[in-house]
């Protein structure tokens, strides 16, 4: 219970500070504030993906429907967060580099994650029988996850030639993040992660209650 209050406090503090303190990157100005939102949200989509995969493996080994529900919920949330991450990234890209989309490694990776979530949800909606739906979507989730290491390795090599800009901003931030910026960023990271876990647990509980009522 206490961590829910913490979530509320954290995100409130983050919201207040990211708009009132000076923008983290002077060259880019106001738009760099989106960094406090975009990066944590992108991180949460990856977290959700991990949750989905682990739950899928658990489902296939134990066949407990609860794991399938958890995998589905984390994928749905992951999809939402992936959309938010892609959109916020595009807004940032427009201001920082001039165009909304450029197929640089980061952008490509988040886009592919979006596609994977979309495909997973499309698969679930294409099957009616509950146990078949659970089995097949678990298999797909695992298949999708194992292609991710390839993406991580292949995409930077092949797409690198187009855009050094992304690595510039990342290396800059890594080299000299002043402490106030770093602390707010970490608060945002923690806050969004907790928010995800909160909504995730809630939705799983709601679905389980719904099932109990109907059985």
């Amino acid at each position, binding site marked *: 219970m206490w961590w*829910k209050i913490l*979530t*509320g406090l954290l*995100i*409130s503090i983050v*919201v207040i500070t*990211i708009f009132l303190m000076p923008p983290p990157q002077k060259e880019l100005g*106001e738009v760099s504030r989106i960094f406090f939102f975009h990066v944590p949200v992108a991180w949460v989509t990856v977290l959700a993906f991990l949750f989905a995969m682990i739950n899928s493996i658990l489902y296939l080994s134990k066949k407990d429907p609860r794991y399938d529900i958890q995998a589905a919920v984390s994928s749905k949330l992951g999809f939402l967060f992936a959309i938010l991450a892609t959109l916020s990234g595009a807004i940032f890209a427009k201001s920082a580099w001039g165009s909304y989309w450029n197929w640089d490694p980061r952008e490509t990776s988040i886009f592919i994650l979006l596609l994977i979530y979309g495909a997973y949800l499309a698969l679930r909606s294409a099957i009616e029988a509950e146990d078949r739906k659970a089995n097949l979507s678990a298999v797909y989730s695992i298949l999708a996850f194992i292609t991710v290491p390839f993406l991580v390795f292949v995409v930077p090599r092949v797409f690198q030639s187009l855009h050094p800009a992304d690595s510039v901003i990342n290396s800059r931030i890594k080299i000299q993040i002043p402490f106030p910026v770093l602390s707010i960023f970490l608060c945002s990271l923690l806050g969004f992660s907790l928010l995800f876990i909160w909504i995730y647990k*809630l939705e799983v509980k709601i679905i389980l*209650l719904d099932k109990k009522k109907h059985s």
Partner: protein
Amino acid sequence: MSANFGVMIVVLIIWLGLFVYLLRLDKKVKELEKK
């Protein structure tokens, strides 16, 4: 500065609204679970 302040207030209100909604939902779910 004032534009930023305005945006911050709006976002804060939206967030607090979401937060209260989640707390209420949480309470309702807890009651239903106890039944």
